């Protein structure tokens, strides 16, 4: 039952996972995050760029990321960085992701379990 739930959460939590992973390397602002997702996924993952901000705000409220405000070319800009609890959350999400993608690969590769072969 717990495994089932985790599967659902994993699908819904993909944008969160990507953002947390990117912020692990260095602090970034919204536009940078979107560009990094686009470039690193070779333009496979694209979305309305404005929707990144509600996600970032929600991560901030959960204290998974912290912010720093700055003025760049006269414009206010908010930089996001990963907090300690964000690092923990990222580690747990990466572990869930690895487990589930391995399970999916096992199915796609046509591996059979012992009980099936018996």
């Amino acid at each position, binding site marked *: 039952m717990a495994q089932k*739930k985790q599967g*659902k*959460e994993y699908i*819904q*939590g993909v944008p*969160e996972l990507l953002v947390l992973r990117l912020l692990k390397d260095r602090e970034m*602002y*919204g*536009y940078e995050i*979107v560009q990094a997702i686009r470039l690193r996924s070779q333009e496979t993952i694209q*979305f*309305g*760029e*404005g*929707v990144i*901000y*509600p*996600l970032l*705000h*929600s991560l901030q*409220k*959960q204290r998974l990321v912290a912010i720093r405000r700055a003025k*760049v070319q006269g*414009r*206010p*800009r*908010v930089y996001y960085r990963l907090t300690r609890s964000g690092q923990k959350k990222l580690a747990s999400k990466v572990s869930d992701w690895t487990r589930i993608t391995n399970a999916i690969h096992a199915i796609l590769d046509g591996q059979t379990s012992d009980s099936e072969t018996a």
Partner: protein
Amino acid sequence: MTPKQLEQLAISLTHEGYSRGYIRRLVQEIQDHRSCICQEITNQPIEESRNTLSTIERMGTNDEILAAVKVHNELMPFSKRYPLVTFAALPAFLLLLTTAIAVCLSNWIVYSISTGSGGFFRPLLVPVETAHFVFPILVAGVAGLVATRCRVPILFPMTTALVTAGAALFQVDFGYCVVSGSIICRQHWELNPLQLAGIWSALFAGLVASGLLVRRSNRQLILAD
């Protein structure tokens, strides 16, 4: 996304009841993002820029952003969405809850002592005077722990402090509540100790179950985000 669209987004968010500070911050971030996209497009070679999406297309529609704001807000636990309400109201609710549980539990145990029908609870029995102090504090602690598991950590010290302060302020004598409660139960409903024990147990189990349910739903909300 044009300035007019941004203005419309701000109006829609205001109608949805989001704070002015939040809306201002979101609009500022989107404006900055839009400026970055404009700079990016300006710096591109002409051939490349023909194939790129416009700023409006890339930013997403107002409806998409509004939907994202709503989804992320709804997925937040209650305590994160309304921290002030949580801070002010939940301790008051827990104060009532812990007082009720304290009275119920003490009532059950002291009634068992007074009627001599403690049964298998007998080894757990303590002097009535001790019960006056110990049970409310114990129950406040349990309620605080439940609150902590519900991801509202501040409620643990607050609940314990409030129960103690409340009892002192209103000069609540838990012992008096216990004895009078037992007498009322005995006189009005003619309950035997076993029936009383059953009622209090069911009540307590219900409270624990509801606490666990709150905790479970909060956890799901956080993880589903």
